[in-house]
């Protein structure tokens, strides 16, 4: 994990997307004394330097990654479309047809994606036109919460692949305490939220404790715990004390109204208090990482565990705490699903939130605000994908393709720079 042996290799400092080399490309360029001593953009005028910072900055890479991914997704959409394939049959006779049809197919799909996620300009009423945006926020809520947990792990040098299991456990706890207990209105959903966080924390804590005590690789343990959580859920859904008696599909009983997260907007909208929780969680993680002593320890361990240990930080304590907090956040993500949107526990309640959260955290570069924005983007993809699928017949799976390409490209900024012929960040590039 420690890449500390090659600090002089400039490209290396920007390739890892984990927390280890966190300083963004631009700030690292100026601040790293190892890069030959020459300050950034040696001697160029300040304005030029600013431009260069923007051109080579990480946010531009992020935006361009999204563009490339959408373009590649478009190619796939066009390639799979029968009308486009038909025009290929006479491509050499009338090549224009091919480009027109391909353009129409792809733009239709992406327009539907946009209408389903931001603003539906074809809707009849204002409420229906605005609803897609709130749906994006609803879909983003669990992604942001779970993504924050993953990001926290990345910043502390832990690869928590177990978001899925933690989300499932959170959903399980939230669902159980949502219908099993009768509590007064506000207290009930607060209690269920807390228990969901506890559930996620327990699940992640297992991996944390094993890592701290026995050195067990957290990647493997969390992957295994994901599967165990899945089977645990499907086991519980066969148990009579857990599942709804009348339902044909395995599902738990419906939670009490008191446990449901209160809606933020009147009826046709589904936006619920969980989004506020996500905002609060983002602020909390920001405060934790950037302003608290504990967060400093987290980041120190993430940057260099050996140095942190030498400085008197207990690495095992940090490992366990990071996993517990990360699991609690992911558990809240599961609670947002059960208490906010679904109202009950089903086998597929967690969907692929836990895995999507990894890509969200990566896209957000493991920063709280970045993760929040990335969660919004992926939430928008998710919400828009449904409209796209129903209206244009483009399967929602294309969203997975676009998302994964985005993350792949973001993980390798030099590749994006090569594609767009962007300048490398101002630092001495080793041979």
């Amino acid at each position, binding site marked *: 994990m420690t*890449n500390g042996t090659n600090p002089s290799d400039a490209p*290396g400092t920007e390739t890892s997307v984990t927390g280890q080399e966190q300083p963004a490309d631009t700030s690292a360029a100026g601040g790293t004394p190892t890069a030959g001593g020459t300050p950034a953009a040696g001697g160029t005028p300040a304005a030029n330097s600013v431009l260069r910072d923007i051109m080579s900055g990480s946010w531009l890479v992020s935006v361009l990654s999204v563009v490339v991914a959408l373009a590649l997704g478009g190619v796939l959409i066009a390639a799979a479309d029968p009308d486009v394939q038909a025009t290929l049959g006479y491509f050499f006779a009338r090549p224009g047809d091919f480009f027109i049809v391909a353009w129409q197919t792809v733009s239709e799909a992406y327009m539907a994606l946009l209408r389903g996620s931001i603003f539906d300009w074809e809707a009849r009423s204002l409420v229906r036109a605005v609803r897609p945006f709130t749906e994006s926020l609803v879909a983003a809520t669990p992604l942001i919460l779970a993504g924050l947990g993953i990001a926290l792990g990345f910043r502390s040098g832990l690869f928590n692949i177990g978001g899925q299991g933690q989300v499932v456990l959170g959903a399980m706890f939230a669902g159980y305490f949502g219908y099993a207990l009768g509590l007064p209105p506000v207290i009930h959903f607060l209690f269920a939220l807390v228990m969901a966080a506890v559930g996620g924390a327990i699940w992640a804590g297992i991996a944390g404790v094993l890592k701290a005590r*026995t050195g067990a690789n957290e*990647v493997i343990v969390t992957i295994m715990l994901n*599967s165990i959580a899945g089977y645990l859920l499907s*086991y519980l859904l066969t148990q009579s004390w857990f599942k709804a008696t009348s339902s044909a599909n395995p599902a738990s009983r419906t939670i009490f109204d008191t446990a449901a997260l209160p809606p933020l907007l009147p009826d046709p909208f589904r936006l619920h208090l969980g989004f506020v929780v996500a905002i609060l969680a983002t602020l909390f993680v920001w405060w934790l990482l950037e302003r608290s002593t504990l967060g400093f320890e987290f980041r120190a361990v993430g940057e260099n565990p050996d140095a942190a240990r030498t400085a008197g930080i207990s690495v095992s304590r940090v490992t366990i705490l990071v996993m517990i907090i990360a699991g609690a956040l992911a558990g809240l993500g599961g609670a947002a699903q059960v208490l906010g949107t679904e109202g009950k526990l089903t086998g597929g309640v967690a969907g692929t939130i836990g895995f999507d959260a*990894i890509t969200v955290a990566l896209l957000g570069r493991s920063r709280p605000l970045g993760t929040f924005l990335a969660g919004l983007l992926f939430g928008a993809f998710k919400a828009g994908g449904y409209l796209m699928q129903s209206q244009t017949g483009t399967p929602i799976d294309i969203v997975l*393709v676009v998302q994964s390409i985005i993350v*792949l490209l973001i993980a390798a900024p030099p590749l994006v720079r090569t594609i767009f012929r962007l300048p490398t960040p101002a630092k001495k590039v080793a041979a």
Partner: protein
Amino acid sequence: MSTVAPDRTPQPRDPSSGPGGAAAPAAAPVKQRAWKYPVVYSVLALASLLVFGLLAGGGKQTTFTFASRNDFFTIPPLPVPSKATCVALGLVLVVLAAVSIWATFTRRRLGVWFPLLFGIVFVFAFLTWSAAGAGRMPVTALLAGALALSVPLIFGAMCGLVGERSGIINIAIEGQLLAGAFLAAVVASALQNPYAGLFAAPIAGALVAVVLTFFAVRYWVDQIIIGVVLNVLVVGVTSFLFSTVLTQDPATWNARQQLPNLPIPLLSDIPVIGPVLFNQNILVYLMYVVVVALQIFIFRSKWGLRMRAIGEHPKAADTVGINVNRNRVLNTLLAGAIAGLGGAFFTIGSGLAFGKEMSAGQGYIALAAMILGKWNPMGALFAALLFGFSKNLANVLSAIGTPVPSQLLLMLPYVVTVLAVAGFVGRVRAPAAEGKPYISQ
């Protein structure tokens, strides 16, 4: 399994992530008697004697059947009294546990046969108990199904093993299996020849490996991240194409094709294991070849030595003139091809059409099998067989209607793996340099 790990704490081991820690000889504590295993054996033996034998209700029968279609001679169904058999098997287990205590006391080492024997007896006790009074327990079908479920796991584990021995962590086995399954189905269907799919599958797996190594070796992106993302990418691409091209014209692109079974003369006539092992399609025979070849070549050839060198200490390998990154790339491509073959088993190997996400997490289990097998082909083979067996056991038991919840059985391999990684079951150590990009100075 979930019972007690003996409360002796495992000896503090250098966490495998520690820099250079793996290179140091882990000061093997020879003097201390390791009481961990005898305790585990004793607990399991007593538990099976009590739960399966003495506490179970009497008066029931368990019927084992061994029939298969083309047996040389037929073994009649074997009914046994459940309780008595379980008690007898439980006593055998107690004796075996006593042997292990004795061996520990006298500092003798028990060979590999011991856990195998213990496991087989334990499984038989469990089978006898769980199928008591229920339907028949089809032993041959149980084993055949177990092997079938293990084949993709074994290929996947071999893929992970070759990659990690070379220093590339491959989380994308799942994606490679899925890609192999997809391309095998599509090509076999389009050319109406299952063997064409057999050639396409490794290409698909290797293509995923190309992306993996491109980002891992060229751009030094964290290998775990690429692996996770590649899995999503492959799911996305295959599901998208499935929902569009394959469903628009399934007759052309997704017709079922099956590799025919090629029974080996004589060997396939052996009762019980003959039809299980030697009446299979070419993919299964290929799997035998791959496992044996890897076992030999990784530890007995120049190629294997280089592979292990670049996985353990790339700098040293570089110093003696081995091109670390080129070897890593080539080995990972080979590994990808192996995983692709495993994926082919889902479609053309089983005579199924391609379905969305049909690899269903098997790649992750393959990863677990590799770890449980200690990065060793034979070990990974047995671990994968164990996983396949427990999964098929869950299927069979729920089919014949036993009280054991299948989900808990399905959970078992994962729990075992967690325990293994945490050091409760054997001791596992990953290649020292895995996951670290090699950057020559």
